[in-house]
């Protein structure tokens, strides 16, 4: 009797597993296997330019990773890029979201148009900013000159710092809309009555924002920070197109991910390159965990209460 019921549950479980199998299989085969292979490579002395003899060298690649000045340099650039795009980007996104959260005419169309930058493929994004910041024919110079802000053309893409800033700008431009809409959705998830209560309680705009709005969009805020951190650490396409595949000028845009690319594909140092990539992955996870800790976790207590 109980056996029959048991059987029913088992049938159910088996059906569930059946549904899950294809997806898991595809993911494991096409991502799991290469992932394992890459980790394997990262423990090898595997430089294609030195021939096809590879040997296991333990953690040597990872040790090099820690001491390599090029990595330090790239990490510095990555930190600069990430901090601005993540913290600045999310902060800006919240501001714009608050702006767009007001009721005004054409709000819907504005929100829709906001998605334009998000939809622009990264490669196109690179080309676009090149057109704009080209030192001799770009519109940026034309506009700035006609406004009298500069007198001679600025060579935006020849100065490492300027190029990095343009990269920051380009990436922010592209990702901001998504973050904005995310924040907008979060803001709309805050019950309006909380604002009313705050108004009655005598909170001014500043207090309302810090004490009511912000704590109440914590979850989405954390998601935005995690996602944006992942993207920022892994930025590639825009750098590639914007700098002609070089990460230049003078390595000024060679972030850690781009360095991994150069090491893997330019220098053909697969072992070291894999170690670098694995390092990035760990870094990404660490940062995700960092944000989770900052925000007090996925709040197990609340979950338990919900269940």
């Amino acid at each position, binding site marked *: 009797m109980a056996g029959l019921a048991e059987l029913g549950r088992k049938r159910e479980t088996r059906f569930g597993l059946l*549904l899950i199998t294809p997806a898991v299989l595809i993911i494991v*085969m*096409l991502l799991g296997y290469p992932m394992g292979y890459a980790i394997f490579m990262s423990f090898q002395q595997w430089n294609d330019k030195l021939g096809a003899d590879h040997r296991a060298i333990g953690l040597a690649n990872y040790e090099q990773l820690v001491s390599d000045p090029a990595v330090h340099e790239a990490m510095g650039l990555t930190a600069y890029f990430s901090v601005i795009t993540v913290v600045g980007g999310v902060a800006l996104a919240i501001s714009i979201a608050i702006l767009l959260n007001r009721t005004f005419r054409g709000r819907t169309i504005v929100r829709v148009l906001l998605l334009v930058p998000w939809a622009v493929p990264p490669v*196109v994004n690179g080309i676009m900013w090149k057109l704009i910041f080209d030192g001799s024919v770009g519109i940026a110079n034309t506009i700035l000159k006609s406004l009298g802000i500069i007198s001679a053309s600025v060579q935006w893409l020849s100065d490492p710092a300027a190029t990095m800033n343009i990269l920051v700008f380009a990436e922010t431009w592209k990702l901001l809309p998504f973050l904005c809409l995310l924040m907008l959705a979060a803001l709309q998830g805050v019950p309006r009555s909380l604002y009313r209560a705050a108004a009655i309680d005598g909170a001014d705009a500043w207090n309302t924002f810090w004490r009511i709005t912000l704590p109440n969009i914590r979850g989405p805020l954390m998601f*935005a920070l995690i996602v944006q951190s992942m993207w920022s650490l892994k930025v590639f396409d825009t750098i590639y197109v914007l700098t002609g595949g070089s990460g230049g000028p003078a390595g000024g845009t060679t972030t850690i991910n781009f360095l991994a690319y150069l090491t893997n594909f330019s220098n053909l140092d697969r072992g070291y390159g894999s170690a670098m990539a694995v390092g990035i992955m760990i870094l990404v996870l660490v940062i995700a965990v960092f944000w989770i800790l900052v925000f007090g976790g996925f709040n197990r207590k609340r979950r338990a209460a919900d269940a």
Partner: protein
Amino acid sequence: MRESWLSRNLRHHLTAWTCGALVIVVMVIFLAPFVWMIAYSVYPSTALQAGVPDLSLTNITLDSYGQLFSDPMFLGPIVNSVIVGLSTTVMCMAAGAACAYAIARFRFRGRQPLLLSMMTVQAIPVIVLAVPLFILLRSVGLYDQLLGLIVTYTAFILPLVIWMLVSFFEEIPPSLERAARIDGCNRLQIMYKIAFPLAAPGMAATAILAFITSWSDFFLAKVLTSNTAVTLPVKTAAFQGLFAMDYTSAATAGVITAIPVLVLTLVAQKWIIRGLTEGAVKG
């Protein structure tokens, strides 16, 4: 006293005006670059590279579009991109919907870790997988084949698809499925007669997102194709080479690459946002 300084009404109006102005500034910043690229694609570059750009309407020409669309070297990648995009989408939706449905409906052990590991996939830098993937695909004869790209993209996009779909499926009231069981549906029928139609808008948005992601990819396509399976972004990026930086063509290719994505995004924006953010809020 603050309230005597300006009347409440006037203050509200002032705020509204300031915010309106800010919105306009923001929108200009968000839209202008893309508009400028469109301009680049329809004006001869000489008109734009002059000291003061000559934007008279008579200058507009669609020559560069004509040129690209009559170039077999460019048409091929377009067709490839369309095929890859559509097939990836179909595969993602087929495998993803089944998986997401199971995760949303059947309580089995390891359900939560499975979902979390789906998100972890997002942390993997593609670079790390490129070489092993290449070796893998070549060994099964899928290098530079559309099918190779399709399965690779499917694997990369599936986690995102599942992540989104789970939140859509979880939203379907269980009572509907119970009603269907009493009405005589078996499990499969419940899925395709009740769950899928109900999640249709969400599924459409997810599908569009899958399409966009595969359509926009550059790096994998660059590594996993050489000629027959080259996709549009790779071709577009190639417009700046050692001996061929043609700004007009690059801009045109850029616009062509971006347009389908733009259109799809605008169509499904509401659902895309919902799908992504709901996943987010559920964390």
